[in-house]
């Protein structure tokens, strides 16, 4: 089971009295593309740097393959890292930047040349080998940083927010290139980002981190369709989920009847296998694309901002009580700005959370 990949066992990290990582277990199989995602300060970069060996591990064990690397030097772990700042050596040419680790290891010249040129070929850097990093564009520098990692042929690639210094268009392009690179190399990759779109598009497995814990892990769409708590539900998905406070009005055959706070004329039937008792306060989550405009009873939303993107549009508005609501419209151009719309949640697409934020299924 443990023969390959990266495995963390109750890993902890504290800086003095501050606990940053509070016990993380994870298994990343060989060849997987794993993404750590979370808001800033959640400890995702620290966790990556601990795997790289740039931060000491306060407690727990880190395995790469079947080796315990918890106390190994960074260079002996078989990992290569791509930094947010790229961390290219400014005084060396692109070629020498990529050859750096092999030169240190005193590899024969022919081998170095072969490996550097192969990596340059993969990354379309062949014409830029003699240039200094300062003469390259942001995207090219990013490729050099990736090339430097490829040349070392590591067991695990680590990426620390590698695309956040690029402009939006280049970011999308590099995202695709990274996905293709992963298919081509088939190596294990761990990628840190705060951008959940990057996480959704790149990952085989997403680890959502918050407060030094893994909140939930799994395939991107599993997290989207079946979040295990309010934090993951709100964090995954763009624009993020709508939340409404509500009370359990009654139990029905296969679930509950809930009434939204401040909406006396609307009740919803929600199927639940473990329904809470009558009168309990809960929170309902509905994604913007699951709020349907209807002519009948529903939530009355005053639309104040309409984001028209062509294919889809996002209508931002408020309920009568003042709660913010976003709903999505596809393929139609209504010009809803300034109007009052009635929306109802699609049946079966309502998530229920208890007051602690845990999902009630």
């Amino acid at each position, binding site marked *: 089971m443990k023969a390959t990949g990266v495995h963390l066992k109750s890993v902890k990290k504290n800086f003095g009295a501050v606990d940053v990582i509070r016990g993380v277990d994870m298994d990343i199989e060989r060849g997987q593309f794993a993404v750590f995602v979370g808001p800033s300060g959640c400890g995702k970069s620290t966790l990556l740097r601990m795997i790289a060996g740039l931060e000491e591990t306060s407690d727990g064990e880190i395995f790469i393959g079947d080796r315990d690397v918890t106390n190994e030097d960074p*260079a002996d772990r078989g990992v290569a890292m791509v930094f947010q700042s790229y961390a290219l050596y400014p005084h060396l040419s692109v070629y020498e930047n990529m050859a750096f680790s092999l030169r240190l*290891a005193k590899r024969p010249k022919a081998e170095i040349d072969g490996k550097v040129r192969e990596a340059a070929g993969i990354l379309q850097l062949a014409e830029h080998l003699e240039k200094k990093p300062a003469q390259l564009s942001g995207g090219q520098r990013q490729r050099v940083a990736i090339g430097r990692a490829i040349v070392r042929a590591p067991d695990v690639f680590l990426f620390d927010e590698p695309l956040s210094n690029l402009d939006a268009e280049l970011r999308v392009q590099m995202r695709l290139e990274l996905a293709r690179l992963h298919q081509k190399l088939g190596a294990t990759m761990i990628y840190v980002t705060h951008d959940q779109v990057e996480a959704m598009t790149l990952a085989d497995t997403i680890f959502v981190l918050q407060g030094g814990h893994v909140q939930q892990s799994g395939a991107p769409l599993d997290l989207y369709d079946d979040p295990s708590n309010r934090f993951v539900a709100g964090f995954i998905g763009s624009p993020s989920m709508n939340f409404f406070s509500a009370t359990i009005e009654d139990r029905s055959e296969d679930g509950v009847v809930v009434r939204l706070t401040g909406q006396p004329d609307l009740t919803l039937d929600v199927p639940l296998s473990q329904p809470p008792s009558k009168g309990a306060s809960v929170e309902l989550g509905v994604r913007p694309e699951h709020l349907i405009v209807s002519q009948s009873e529903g939530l009355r939303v005053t639309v104040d901002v309409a984001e028209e993107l062509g294919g889809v549009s996002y209508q931002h508005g408020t309920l009568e009580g003042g709660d913010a609501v976003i709903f999505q419209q596809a393929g139609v151009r209504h010009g809803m700005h300034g109007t009052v719309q009635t929306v109802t949640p699609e049946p079966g697409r309502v998530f229920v959370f208890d007051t602690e934020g845990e999902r009630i299924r």
Partner: protein
Amino acid sequence: MGAPGQSLQGEEAAMSKAKRRRRELRAAGLLTAPFLFVFLIFFLYPTYKVIALSFTDAPLIGDGQWIGLANYAKLLNDRLFFTSLWNNLYFVLLTVVPTTVIALLIALAVSKLKGRMQALVLTLFFLPYVLPVSVVTLIWAWMLDFQFGILQPLIAAVTGKPVPVFRNPYWVMPMIAVVTIWWTNGFNVLLLIAGLRNIPEDLYEAASLDGATPWQRFWRVTWPLLWPVTALVLTLQLILQLKLFDQVYLLSNGGPFNSSYVVLMQMYREAFQLNNGGYASAIAMVLFLVIVIVSVLQFQLLRIGGRK
């Protein structure tokens, strides 16, 4: 109706443009005037006077006869001048590279410290630089005093007997070099620390992931990236140490047997003790040219070295 109105507007625009330009020029003139004034009166004019003086036989005060290049010709046959020049170069050899190496070692050590501790240690190293030269030389004259100096037992332990360092022709220049390095090193440490702080931490992280040992991290990352600052320190030191005067004047007065006599000392003696203003100016001019040539040469060499 439209056309004349437009041309009138065009003229107005041109006027206001000219007016704005005049206003900018006036502001520029006002802002640079104080510096220009000081520069002309206290630098350019005296420089011109020294050059002019070096072609005359003038005393220190008053005019003299134009004698062409006679002062320079005399300088070429002045054995004391060549002794002084040689002593200057010997002193440069003793100070410039050693002080840079020592400053680099201190800077590397200090940059490993954190927060307040770093500030404290840096202050300690910088403290001598704040002292005036007379205090510095007094401290060292006492510490190295032949009879009572606290450093004499150390010297005795190495050489077998106490040495009157400022009255010994072999010891005098190296000792003045030690005093000078102790005095001025803090400033170099400061420059190099600033240079070290400019090297991003993640380069070292990348290097350690690439498998670089601490030694390789220094020679392959720190050294090449710090080189511009190192070259600056070397050049500043070269210029400073060629202008050596006060330490020698206060510690050994050029002796013994002229073994610590330097060019500026000779200039001082010719001008203010022998009243030979013209000849002293010629000496000053030659030292000026030596400094310019050597420092430009060195800076170019260092730049080429850095580019490779």
